[in-house]
């Protein structure tokens, strides 16, 4: 019983903490973000299983986390508002070739992030980008001007 409660609590604490981090946490992972994810996961697992490292306890914890995750996914698909809370919404970083400073500042984006996204889409210069969109999963979609 405590394991299941700890797993539920750990899931939501981790989800909330990662969510209030900026969106790069789950995508475009650099070593910087890997450290964060592994360290957080390792810390949460300590309080989830406690001193009971039996197969039964770990199985119950895994099933509990799986069920919570499925429930959250279901709620996310049913309610766009809940989905926005869990995942955020896409944000336009460059609109018709113009930077959107509020979004750049708010999401702590760097010009290099957009340039990297441009390169992976075959765009060699930022000036050639018509739209750059920070997606919910942290990826940056780039639409070139001549498309």
């Amino acid at each position, binding site marked *: 019983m405590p394991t299941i409660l700890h797993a539920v609590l750990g899931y939501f604490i981790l989800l909330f903490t990662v969510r209030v981090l900026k969106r790069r946490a789950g995508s475009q992972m650099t070593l910087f973000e890997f450290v964060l994810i592994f360290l957080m996961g390792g810390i949460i697992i300590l309080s989830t299983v406690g001193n009971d490292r039996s197969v039964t306890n770990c199985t119950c914890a895994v099933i509990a986390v799986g069920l919570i995750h499925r429930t959250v996914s279901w709620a996310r698909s049913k309610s766009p508002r809940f989905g*926005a809370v869990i995942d955020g919404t896409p944000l336009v970083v460059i609109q018709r070739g113009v930077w959107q400073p509020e979004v750049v500042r*708010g999401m702590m984006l760097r010009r290099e992030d957009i340039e990297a996204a441009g390169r992976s889409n075959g765009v060699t210069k930022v000036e050639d980008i018509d*739209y750059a969109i920070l997606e919910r999963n942290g990826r940056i979609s780039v639409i070139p001007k001549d498309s």
Partner: protein
Amino acid sequence: MPAPPFLTPVEDSVPKVNNEIAIGENLDFQRKWWRLERAVWSLFLLILICDLLGLFGRGWLSKATRATPDNTLKLDYERIERADTPSIMTFHFGPNAIHNGRIQLYVSESITRPLGAQRIAPEPLISAVGDAGNTYTFAATNAPATVQIELEPSFPGAHDFTVQVPNEPPINAKVFVVP
């Protein structure tokens, strides 16, 4: 039986930007979220400061000392403990606590049950149960003398406890166990 056809038309379901690309951006929501993020990070900072000060145990604010009026028994303990985390409760005995080479110490049952006494150092010569607690008898030479009980509480919440040496007023205190 064949599955019914999926009748939802294929069309954009989210608002378009400049009537060109369907993105579904919601800047009003995002502005609220940024405000929430700032509030949450301030809260996180506050939590860390409280933790450093010991408000959640194992720090300066969590340490407490109680003593009988004539210092026959002085008790060092943590007023805030963490569940399933070991801590030490230390008893310092003055000269008046030693009678015929023995020290007797009464501890209430709450030290054993919710506060999870794991080990007593040194080992008592005699452990007697009764009066809603345990009475330990230790061999002693001269003051100062010290006994330690290792605690590992399992139950979060507030727990009262009492400790006493014979013919001295009891020390009553409370321990908060955080999850």
